């Protein structure tokens, strides 16, 4: 365990894996039917605002996590209330991802019980988190290339199966497109707000903001391509009704006598799927630490992991309930929270800054927010 800041390259890799890994198992914005890929691009525009807000807050309050900024800018009580809402939103995402992940694995290998799968995943995350935060960064930096290779390979191999007439008519109705945009903005794009908890650990963010936005755009583009390809191969109806459309596509491809290549892509799913879980799980650790003002989050890792595992198993007893809760109701809560939380903080911080500068005498240097102390986190 060590306290080395993660590099901006590693941070970008985590951002990429968070976006790609969150959606590998389904097509985001599928409500927009054949226009889902447009919905994804539109959702990415909304998500970029969240990313901008998070980075701006970090520049205004360097060394502070977004949850600490919340209490600093809004005050203890309102800040903590917002943090609790944020905690719940991240918790719902973490549960959803974990559920999706173990259901996919159970789908691949029905011989292993979901409970076993769930706790193996949780314990793997626990092991990675105990290694230290910079290790997550390094793991992300390693995994990003593996994911990219498999992703591009998958897109390339499946391309001959595509029938692009499935993508027509383009944006025929605005309502499904708006709904698709809303859902894709909710998941995966607005979830980048969780990275506001990691920004204080990034070594040189100011010089590398372009790199971060660049990786964000690459992820959005890849998601749009992936979703367009899925729609072109399966068609809108099958894409919407299939539980794991991408998995189905990889099942259709073959190489010589080898007809079942989807498990080769298991590497992609596991690496890209587990990294977002680790990020959200660590985010939960940070938020709980800040809400309860704990010195250390190390002791939270295992208990929170167990809570996450048990809660997920009980929260989604069936796929149908999961679909109702995760795809119908939870976006109505999670999107406003994830979108408005950084926006509100940025507004409040801006107003505070203006007030401070208007108070200072003309000609003198504008008052800067007091440099906050470093987060009381145990070195990791």
């Amino acid at each position, binding site marked *: 365990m060590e306290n080395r800041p993660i*590099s901006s*390259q*590693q941070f970008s890799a985590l951002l990429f894996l968070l976006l790609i890994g969150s959606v590998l198992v389904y097509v985001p914005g599928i409500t927009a039917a054949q226009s889902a890929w447009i919905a994804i691009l539109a959702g990415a525009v909304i998500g970029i605002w969240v990313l901008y807000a998070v980075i701006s807050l970090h520049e205004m309050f360097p060394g502070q996590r977004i949850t600490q900024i919340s209490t600093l800018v809004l005050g203890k009580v309102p800040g903590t209330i917002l943090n609790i809402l944020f905690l719940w939103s991240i918790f719902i995402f973490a549960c959803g991802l974990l559920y999706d992940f173990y259901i996919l*694995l159970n789908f*691949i*290998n029905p*011989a*292993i019980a979901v409970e076993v*799968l769930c706790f*193996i*995943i949780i314990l*793997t995350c626990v*092991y*990675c988190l105990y*290694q*230290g935060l910079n*290790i997550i960064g*390094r*793991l992300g*930096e*390693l*995994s990003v290339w593996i994911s990219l290779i498999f992703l591009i390979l998958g897109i390339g191999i499946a391309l001959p199966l595509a029938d692009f007439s499935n993508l027509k008519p383009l944006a025929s109705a605005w309502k499904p497109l708006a709904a698709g945009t809303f859902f894709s903005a909710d998941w995966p794009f607005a979830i980048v707000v969780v990275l506001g908890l990691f920004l204080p650990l990034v070594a040189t963010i100011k010089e590398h903001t372009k790199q971060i936005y660049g990786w964000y755009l690459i992820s959005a583009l890849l998601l749009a391509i992936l979703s367009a390809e899925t729609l072109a191969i399966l068609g809108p109806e099958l894409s919407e009704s299939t539980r794991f459309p991408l998995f189905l596509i990889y099942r259709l491809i073959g190489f*010589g*006598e*080898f*007809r*079942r290549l989807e*498990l080769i892509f*298991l*590497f992609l799913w*596991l*690496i890209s799927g*587990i990294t977002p879980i680790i990020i959200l799980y660590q985010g939960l650790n940070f938020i709980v630490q800040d809400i309860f003002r704990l010195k250390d989050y190390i002791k939270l890792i295992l208990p929170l992991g167990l809570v996450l595992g048990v809660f997920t198993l009980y929260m989604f007893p069936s796929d149908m309930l999961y679909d109702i809760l995760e795809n119908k109701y939870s976006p109505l809560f999670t999107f406003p929270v994830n979108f408005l939380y950084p926006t509100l903080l940025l507004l409040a911080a801006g107003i505070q800054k203006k007030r401070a500068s208007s108070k200072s005498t003309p000609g003198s240097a504008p008052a800067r927010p007091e440099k906050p102390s470093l987060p009381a986190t145990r070195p990791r």
Partner: protein
Amino acid sequence: MFRLLSQKMRRYRTSSSDNQTQAKQNASPKYLSKNLEGNLQVLREELGQSSDVIIRDMKISSNSDVDGAVIYIDGLVDRNLLNQDILQPLMFNLQVIKDNVNQKQSKLIDFIKSSVLTVGQISGTEDIDTVIAGVLSGHTAILIEGVTQALLIDTKGWETRNVDEPTNEVSIRGPKDSFNETLRTNTALLRRKIRDPRLTFQSLQIGERSKTDVTVAYIKGITPDHLISEINQRLKRIDTDAILDIGYIEQFIEDSPLSLFPTVGVTQRPDVVAAKILEGRAAILVDGSPMALTMPFLFIEGFQNPDDYYARPFFAAAIRWLRLLGFTLSIYLPGIFVSLKAFHPELFPAPLLVSVAAAREGLPFPVALEAILMLSLFEILREAGLRMPRSLGPAVSIVGALVIGQAAVSAGLVGAPMVIVVATTAIASFLVVPYADAGALLRFLMTIVAGFLGLFGMVIFQLEILSHLAALRSLGVPYLSPVTPLKLRGLKDVFIRAPLWAMDRRPEFLDSSDKRRQSPGQMPRAPQTKPGKREG
């Protein structure tokens, strides 16, 4: 509970080490007296009654009545040097000594040191412990009546092995010399390769009883100072009875002693050590060991071979990929076979599935157990091959090959596909020798995991290995550098081996003080011919 216990242990360790240090400090140094017989008595008591300790009484110059004695350990000194350059000049009829004998006796010893003895390295000491330590390490001590100083003459000269070809790290184009068990020979081999005055050999003795000479080799101005001070700190922390091999040092100073992966490099090739020192690393040499340690040691170094740098780059890069593939196969292949057979048979193409199923028809063991049995059998054969007398080697190979290759299949104990898998794994495991041990253990674990959880378990286990590797450090340098943390320049010698003229900088991750190792732009080009003067 565990914390309480570990705290108590730590406190106990601290207090006991403090006591030892205090005891060492309290032991007051003993000095030589003017009485020769008294001094010899003390030395006899300290050195014991060993038959190899020789105390030779003598008269300094034949005509004088000044008593003296020469003390040495038989077998550790060069007898010719002792007889011709020490005893002969001292005892034979030298007028100069006689004249000087009449002078003050304290000046006599200086005179002998400067004008009589014809040996290169001589030092004087008044401390009895220094005399004993010197004698035990192959020096010859001269004591003279009425003088409180002894002369320690470097007469080391024991039987040594010649500089042979390296047996563990064979190179096709590279030099054929390797280290032997004599520290001075090893330092000389390095000095011959790097004739830089800043090449430094920093020596110290470790081992309460063995007093083993340990040398840290580095180039001042290239190896960062903080690395050297960290190595010295770790070496000085060692408090043990004896260092019998460099492996002892390795286990005391490595960063992650509980990891399967080595974080200290081991080599027997002087050219490898020289190259690593020139990159900004440090090496440790130990008297009595034909190996050298290099630090920091990164994961990718296990895949690098001296021939990579002596051959042209394209083939070297291809071979490096082959090593990476071999290492991957050696760990995963049995696991993949087990998980495909037990959990995902649909992944086999239909004809292959049929032949695999036919080969396994009637076998008594589940596929995972079959794999573990075969892997264990291979490890038994490997270990037996290493330890048995050389003359028995071929016999065991024949028996092993027959048992594994034919008899087991004919008897219906294992299937032929499993034999192919295990044999491929075994051969692949020797492509990357530094990780052969770690690979063997991981192979077993991976096969067990595959037997229980299939491909999913393997990938999860792989993730854990990756995160463990990402957490490892060698002397503070991340083990997976330069892949992560990513250093683009460093990648020139990772997945490819860039041409030597393109590698103009030392590895960035080592944070060397002198970053550049050669001038850039040295790519060789054909001479420009003027238009109109072309041949043909």
